[in-house]
């Protein structure tokens, strides 16, 4: 009873987070494996295809069922959706399907099979039937396979994507690489900065803290904009380099819209998230510790690596986790300054969400990303404890 009372005030937020975050994430997972569009629109065909051997063309009766259901689908305007789903399995089949009902009505062939093949000879091939059968499955692994550059062939076997079309694994690896690089850069730049803040006189410490906190509180868009202004070809940095003669005016450096731009901008944007946890840990490291070490004969390097650094590790872990997780899901900065080589997986997720409307694939890519982050989160919580997270 007492325990219940103690937790009751936390219930509204727990419920709120579940409803506004966990349930949506659950629906994301569902979307990545579930699509009933075709099964709902072509129920009889779906049933008939379950019985189909798959080695010869289906019987004339199946052709007739399909013709009937496609005609209905055309009237209810479901046809395009069916065609687009099948097209994802067998590229190019969309137009075959969408033209069929209209022409079927005008056909004077003796039976449905002959009529279909007269409309498009693809109907006489097994591929499109396999694709159609596969599209009637409500649960599919297709999106996840595609997200790792494999594909589910129309006949149900699994094959690698042709090399010319493999892109997601490369992007996942690049995303991982960029996140590790940004985390490492933030650590190398941020560690001495946090140290300086933690060990400066109170006046200086306050000033330095302000210098870190101003960018922290400033909009991400503002900071990304400033990097575009600084790094672009007609920008501030190139002007300075031309002025001091390091670079010729007609040979200005390309520093934005490529990987350099992405790394520089992301590092600067995420640096405060490394510095602040480090700083809060470092201020609590007793100064006597290093003094004791040097009085015992350790040189500054030894006393740092053996005594100070191990004590600052919780800060390194907290900062590293924050920076890594934030950069792995980064969308805005790479989209604005990334150019063609600085794109990350989130940019492709956005493409499938907004432009191609292939939501199943967008969901599958997100789920893979999420699982990666969750593993990291759980490991961190196990070893360091998420409740020790501090801000400034």
């Amino acid at each position: 009873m007492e325990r219940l009372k103690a937790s009751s005030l936390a219930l509204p937020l727990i419920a709120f987070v579940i409803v506004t975050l966990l349930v949506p994430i659950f629906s994301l997972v569902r979307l990545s494996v579930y699509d009933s569009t075709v099964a709902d629109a072509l129920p009889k065909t779906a049933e008939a295809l379950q019985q189909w051997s798959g080695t010869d063309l289906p019987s004339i009766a199946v052709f007739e069922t399909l013709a009937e259901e496609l005609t209905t689908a055309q009237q209810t305007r479901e046809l395009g959706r069916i065609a687009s789903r099948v097209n994802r399995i067998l590229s190019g089949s969309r137009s075959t399907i969408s033209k069929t009902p209209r022409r079927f009505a005008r056909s004077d062939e003796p039976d449905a099979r002959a009529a279909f093949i007269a409309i498009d000879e693809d109907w006489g091939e097994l591929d499109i039937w396999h694709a159609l059968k596969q599209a009637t499955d409500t649960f599919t692994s297709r999106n996840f396979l595609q997200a790792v550059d494999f594909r589910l062939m129309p006949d149900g076997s699994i094959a690698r994507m042709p090399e010319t079309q493999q892109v997601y694994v490369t992007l996942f690896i690049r995303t991982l690489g960029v996140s590790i690089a940004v985390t490492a850069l933030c650590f190398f730049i941020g560690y001495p900065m946090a140290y300086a803040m933690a060990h400066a006189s109170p006046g200086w410490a306050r000033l330095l803290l302000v210098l870190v906190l101003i960018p922290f509180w400033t909009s991400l868009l503002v900071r990304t904009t400033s990097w575009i202004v600084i790094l672009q070809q007609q920008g501030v940095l190139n002007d300075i380099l031309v002025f001091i003669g390091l670079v010729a005016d007609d040979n200005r450096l390309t520093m934005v819209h490529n990987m350099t731009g992405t790394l520089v901008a992301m590092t600067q944007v995420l640096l405060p998230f490394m510095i602040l946890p480090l700083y809060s840990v470092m201020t609590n490291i007793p100064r006597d510790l290093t003094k004791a070490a040097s009085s015992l004969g350790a040189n500054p390097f030894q006393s740092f690596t053996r005594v100070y650094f191990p004590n600052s590790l919780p800060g390194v872990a907290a900062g590293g986790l924050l920076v890594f997780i934030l950069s792995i899901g980064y969308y805005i900065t790479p989209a604005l300054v990334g150019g063609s080589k600085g794109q990350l997986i989130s940019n492709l997720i956005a493409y499938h969400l907004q432009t191609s409307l292939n939501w199943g694939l967008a969901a599958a890519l997100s789920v893979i990303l999420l699982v990666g982050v969750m593993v990291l989160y759980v490991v961190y919580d196990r070893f360091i404890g998420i409740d020790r997270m501090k801000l400034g």
Partner: protein
Amino acid sequence: MKNYLTTVLCTIVMVLGSAIVAEESVTVVSFGGSYAKACVEGYHKAFEAETGIKVNLEDYNGELSQLRAQVEAGSVTWDVIDAEGPQVAIACDEGLIETIDALNLPPSPDGVPAEEDFAPGTLTECGVGKVYYATMVAYHPDAFPDNEPTKVEDFFDLENFPGRRGVHRSPQAVLEISLMASGVAPEDVYDTLETEEGIERAFGMLDSIKDDIVWWEAGAQPPQMLADREVSMTIAWNGRIFNAQMLENQPFKILWDGRTIDSGGMVIAADAPNLENARKFVEFSARAESEAGVASYIAYSPVRKSGYDLVGNHAITGKPMKPHLPTNPEHGGRQLTLSTDFWIDRRDELVERFAAWLNR
């Protein structure tokens, strides 16, 4: 307690607020920038004056996810959308937009029925075309003092025409232009692209200049890159180059050879909240005068023959517009109409291939 109350009030006010829509209006979602201005001046104002229906113009980047979300959730707020060809077809397939059957498209001023007056392919199942725009090569003449480029092959000839090249980071139109430059006749481009060798051939052309390509994404970038001399030649949209020429007196030139043209379409959202007004608006947009009105502000060709004939002078500078219109037969050179069917069948695959090629 007070906080809860405020939250609840905030929410109630907003939910009610979004439910109340001005009585006679139509929400039109279109591309922003100079194109939107051309539409407003070219015919939105005339529409408002004639019908008393207010046009709420909103701009977007051509993505249809919001429309799909609205339709799926059953709370549509858009009425009319101005979309690119392939997007019109996708939205039509997905049942996100109305078919044009219910529309009563006006005949031309001298009585030619709409079906005959619109260029072939510009009236689709769900979309009513308005203007053609071109994706083609533009260049800065100062970069080529001795011999200026004359054909699309020159875009891929770094030796005789040095300098970096701007290219749209999208396979659409870029692959077609590359194929034309490799010697494929415009009428054979899509048959070639259907084959594996054809796709390889297009990427092969791009490979030959890959190291000198500066990629762009937004239409405003190519004129900017030419002005800064970051590139000497670039693939661009003709309306943007036109604006730079006319309004900013830039000396850019357009290489009309090897252009691809595309007409978008005006479409009506399924379950549009102001369906009647939306229909009136699309019918009004389909008038020859409306199309010509747009073309007096921006160099896009009316898709109606009668609309093209009506085009006169630029509304701001008073210079004749016809020489700048992408479909003007006097340009000569090769011209290809972008195939919507090809792009919806193949786009997902080609976008992935394009991304994979960029990563190589």
